[in-house]
């Protein structure tokens, strides 16, 4: 790699013009001619990797947060375990998992899910705990059962905090999923890894920019979803 940098003997990366051979910052022609065979599939794979990880993480973390909401003792152990998972460097975690689950999508997903748990759990639990006590008290006094209070009062009121957690988790996973290319040849990490080998700038920048754009788009979409689901949050004294 250092040799490549010192003496730029650049291959033409599957047929490029002068821009590619000179390895300029960004070669639009090359990008557009490889959109269909490289970037579009990578983007879709990235979206799938992220979506699956966030959905599974959401299901696990939310269920655990509901348990912790009813039984407070459960919070400590869950935060400890998910906290440890959260602090393991992603490359190390992939490396740890490969001997067990191999170079598979499963390995990538296990690692990605494990990074969502703490974030989503914390946010769901905080959201549930921040439900005003008087609303809960009134609900109980009117004869709602514990499950009805959860479904009709607590979860709807926790929704802004829950979506906030989902936003952080989603953006985190989109970023981390690029590292999954260490294990599997999928997602936007794959072109980035390839470009790292060859130090071909266009491929590197294109994949990176697409990951950033995906993160921004997903985040924006979640904001819109939250707004649609919580019209009351915008209500203020007239």
């Amino acid at each position, binding site marked *: 790699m250092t040799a490549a940098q010192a003496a730029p003997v650049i291959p033409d990366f599957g047929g490029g013009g002068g821009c590619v051979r000179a390895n300029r910052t960004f070669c639009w022609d090359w990008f557009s001619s490889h959109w269909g065979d490289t970037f579009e599939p990578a983007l879709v794979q990235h979206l799938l990797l992220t979506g699956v990880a966030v959905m599974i993480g959401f299901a696990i973390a939310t269920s655990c947060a509901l348990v912790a909401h009813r039984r407070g003792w459960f919070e400590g152990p869950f935060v400890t375990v998910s906290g440890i998972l959260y602090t393991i460097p992603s490359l190390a975690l992939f490396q740890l998992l490969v001997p067990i689950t191999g170079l598979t999508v499963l390995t990538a997903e296990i690692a990605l899910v494990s990074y969502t748990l703490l974030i989503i759990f914390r946010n769901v639990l905080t959201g549930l705990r921040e439900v*005003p006590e*008087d*609303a809960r008290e*009134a609900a*109980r006094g*009117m004869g709602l*059962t514990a499950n009805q209070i959860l479904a*009709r009062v607590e979860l709807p009121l926790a929704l802004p905090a829950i979506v906030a957690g989902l936003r952080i988790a989603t953006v985190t996973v989109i970023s981390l999923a690029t590292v999954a290319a260490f294990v599997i040849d999928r997602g936007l990490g794959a072109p980035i890894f390839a470009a790292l080998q060859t130090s071909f700038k266009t491929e590197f920048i294109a994949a990176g920019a697409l990951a950033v754009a995906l993160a921004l788009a997903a985040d924006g979409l979640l904001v819109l979803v939250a707004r649609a689901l*919580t019209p009351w949050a915008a*209500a203020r004294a007239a």
Partner: protein
Amino acid sequence: MRRVRSGRPPATVTESIGNASAAVGAGRAAEIVFDAVTKRYPRRTEPAVRSLSLAVGAGEICVLVGPSGGGKTTAMRMVNRLIDITEGDIRIDGTSVRSLDATRLRRGIGYVIQQVGLFPHMTVAQNIGTVPRLLGWGRPRIRDRARELVELVGLDPGQDLDRYPAELSGGQRQRVGLARAMAADPPLMLMDEPFGALDPITRARLQDEFLRLHRAMRKTVIFVTHDIDEAIKMGDRIAILRPGGILAQYAAPDEILASPADDFVARFVGADRGLKRLSLMTLADLQLEPAGADAPGAPTATLSTPLRDALSEMLGQGGRPLTVVAEDRRPVGVVRLETIARALSRQAPAGRPKRGR
């Protein structure tokens, strides 16, 4: 002792609580009996409520009042079983609250708290529809009921039904809280310092409006407050609880002011209890002296003037007698300082109607 205000005999509790027929002013009211109710909390030597026995007639407003630590909220919350009874029993129209399923019991009892507890994510209409929805009413019926109640509590159905609580003032929120508690036309309402968080003007207005509503609806109400003036204003009968959850006196406001049971009650109602009594009576309650020759410029007052205000007026006029006039300004008599003093020295006449009822 009490005038019976409910025209109908009380329904059975299963009927009155289970069946949530609704029409404003249907007049379903329940009779509540506290039978030697005691509440002990674990790891506390003193009970919070000690052997409390009292009966609230159907359609009455019973105010539980006392300093903090008197167990008044605890006593109230045992009625809808938000707090479990340790010993004794509470019966609604003869049925023990302990024999009923707690959530079913609560759906049949209106519940209003100081912080209101509106659901911020629901509109006014949805908040009011909470219990009707639990009872399985259809959407159009719930909407009609919400509209009717919003109007009843003095809000604008066209504008306010689809607002969120955050868009309302404190007074408006408590109006919605009241409407929500009345949604399924419960025969009994529990109100825990409902006007305690409001400014004095809004509080007085809501008190007046609630009394007006109550005259039309005749629900049984258990009302908790720490404010003796509010207790006197709102209560048909007042239960004064002393620290340790002991009932110090249970009587009509006038009787408590005229003859406090002990020093504690006398201190609690205040040294101005004579004046407070005067605010319970109007000039119409007095034996007036015949109106003399019309002295031009003499101070006048209408028959509906509270004695406290009449006295203040007379003192302000250097003690001159007031000419009492009917609503049509026709003089009907004269009141002097001595007339009022005589009224105060009388023992509390049992069952005399309160002002404005």
